[in-house]
């Protein structure tokens, strides 16, 4: 297959103008990803008018470049400030920041960067080799399969909790409850809105997340006694030093993260954020040192970092083959594909061979370019830590407010950010973890929708939720995991009792 088409596509991607567009898109992606509140989805939406008058190949290169950079850049404020830049970094923010406090900031950055690049390449390889087959499998998922999958994902929440199990569950339930605010997903009835119209669309997710991580962190900084507004002052050394050792040690975690990320990306309706959560919790479940997760675990960072960028490429699989978006970014991309005369469908690879080949090449180029460009970004961002806190904290607060506002151009988001920041601050003071609440918010809506629509389809007979084969398998796995958890809890309780 490496023939004329390949060389034509390669030449198109490496045209000077296309490369310039790619470079500009990379800068843009880095900026948007690193600002809390601005997400990869928004970056791509903003690209549409810019790419409107471009030929197809530079337009595709711009989108691929922007998303790859944005998902990685979301890790930068995580590492530096414990504030995830995009939702895809939320799962392992605590670990990344804990490493910085230990003086291992450059290692954390290096792990995030290298796993992102490898994850992206892995996803791209899958996209090139298996797109039609995998899309065909993913499109068979109905609400039944998704229901069991979401339930499986929520089971993961138990693994992402650190410390008191009950408090972790409370946090998860809080997230699920927050997800019910607004018009209900089935009938459009306003729930817990108290006639406030701003609440009809629910609590804005990005503003809630920024509030819970960023505002609570700012509050924690300004209330820290004894150490008046100080942090680790630490210039970054060699970003890549030590990364090889970590990756060799946890190479199995990395491949597993790549695979999980790609698979979740391919499934319509779940993207990089859910991929990172699931990979992280699977990593914790099988880790030999699960107690370090949440406290600066290199292993957890590898798990999740490898998953989120892999999901980005995975999401293109159903988008290209069936015109069904794999995540919120590709939902926008599909419109662009049409505009550029690329009709999504199983025939896209035959009908537009040059453009699709160029797209594949763009994925490889973007993820390879991630290494040098990301390295520069890390170097530059390291100076953030030497800015005095008196200047830094107000600037971060302003960025958070503008970012939250920008998602839906809604000043109400700022109030949400404020309230959720206070809630999260109080939760932290009482050792209630925040991560499960975010996961609950991500999955709550899906859980309710898939459960209730599935019941509607089977006229309310719960037993029929497992009549489809894939659903039955997923249900069996869920039940087995639950049984294992109960069993180990019971054994621990027994052991504690005999000791006492």
């Amino acid at each position, binding site marked *: 297959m490496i023939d004329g088409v390949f060389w034509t596509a390669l030449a198109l991607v490496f045209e000077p103008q296309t490369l310039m567009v790619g470079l500009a898109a990379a800068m843009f992606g880095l900026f948007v990803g690193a600002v809390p509140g601005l997400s990869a989805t928004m970056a791509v939406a*903003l690209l549409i008018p810019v790419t409107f008058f471009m030929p197809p190949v530079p337009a595709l290169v711009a989108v691929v470049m922007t998303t790859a950079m944005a998902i990685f850049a979301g890790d930068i404020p995580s590492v530096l400030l414990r504030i995830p830049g995009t939702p895809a970094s939320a799962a392992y923010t605590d670990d990344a920041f804990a490493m910085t406090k230990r003086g291992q900031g450059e290692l954390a950055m290096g792990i995030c960067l290298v796993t992102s690049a490898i994850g992206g390449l892995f996803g791209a390889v899958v996209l090139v080799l298996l797109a039609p087959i995998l899309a065909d499998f993913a499109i068979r998922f109905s609400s039944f399969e998704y229901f069991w999958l979401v339930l499986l994902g929520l089971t993961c929440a138990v693994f992402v909790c650190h410390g008191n199990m009950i408090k972790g569950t*409370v946090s998860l*339930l809080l997230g699920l*409850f927050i997800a019910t605010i607004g018009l*209900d997903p089935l009938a459009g009835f306003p729930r817990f809105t108290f006639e406030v119209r701003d609440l009809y669309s629910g609590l804005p997710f990005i503003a809630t997340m920024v509030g819970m991580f960023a505002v609570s962190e700012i509050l924690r900084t*300004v209330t820290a006694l004894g150490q008046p507004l100080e942090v680790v002052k630490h210039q970054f050394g060699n970003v890549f030093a030590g990364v090889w050792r970590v990756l060799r040690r946890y190479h199995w975690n990395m491949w597993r993260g790549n695979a999980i990320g790609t698979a979740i990306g391919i499934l319509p309706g779940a993207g990089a954020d859910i991929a990172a959560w699931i990979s992280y919790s699977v990593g914790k479940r099988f880790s030999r040192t699960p107690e370090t997760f949440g406290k600066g675990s290199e292993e957890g960072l590898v798990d999740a970092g490898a998953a989120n960028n892999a999901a980005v490429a995975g999401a293109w699989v159903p988008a290209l083959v069936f015109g069904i978006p794999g995540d919120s970014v590709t939902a926008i991309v599909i419109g662009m594909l049409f505009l550029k005369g690329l009709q999504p469908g199983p025939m896209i690879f035959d009908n537009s061979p040059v453009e699709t080949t160029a797209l594949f090449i763009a994925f490889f180029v973007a993820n390879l370019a991630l290494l040098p460009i990301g390295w520069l970004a890390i170097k530059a961002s390291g100076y953030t830590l030497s800015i005095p806190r008196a200047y830094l904290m*107000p600037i971060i607060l302003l960025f958070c407010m*503008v970012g939250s506002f920008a998602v839906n151009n809604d000043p109400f988001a700022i109030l949400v950010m404020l309230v959720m920041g206070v809630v999260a601050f109080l939760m932290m003071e009482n050792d209630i973890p925040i991560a499960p609440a975010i996961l609950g918010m991500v999955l709550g809506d899906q859980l309710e929708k898939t459960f209730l629509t599935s*019941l509607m389809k089977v006229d309310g007979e719960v037993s029929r939720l497992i009549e489809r084969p894939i659903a039955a398998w997923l249900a069996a796995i869920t039940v087995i995991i639950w049984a294992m958890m109960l069993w180990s809890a019971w054994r621990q309780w027994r052991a504690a009792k005999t000791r006492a």
Partner: protein
Amino acid sequence: MRFNNAVLGGLLLAGAIAIVVTASGFPNVPGQQFGPRHFPYLIAAGFGVCGALLVAQGLATRRATGEAWVRLGDWMTSPRHLLNVGVVLGAMLVYWWAAPVLGFIPTAFILLALMMRWLGAGWLGAVCVAAATTAMIHISFYSWLRVSLPLGLMRDVLYP
């Protein structure tokens, strides 16, 4: 501010009851068997169970160690740090209220300068950094990212 688990549990139980009471008012959907109230019921049940467990835990801890119902954080006894919290939360409220009226540029500039000064920066530094940050955010968000930051007072200055 740290609460004894029994207090947290009590709050959760109250929350569970409030959810059930509110949700019971949600209507049925014509032609559907399941409505908007069922999922909140499940969540309330979860809150109830966790709340009860926390109450039990909290009471046990209190019997064993005599932990207070509420323990104030160290920062709550320091006026300086209490004011810090007030400044951060107040800044957000002021921004929310003032930005749509005065516009992004004046609101952001004044808030940034005042906060920086309060947190210990010198006047000159605070004003310069605040001005530079405001200009940078306006250009990058309003002009490049096309976020419709409110123009307010600055509208006739920027677009005469």
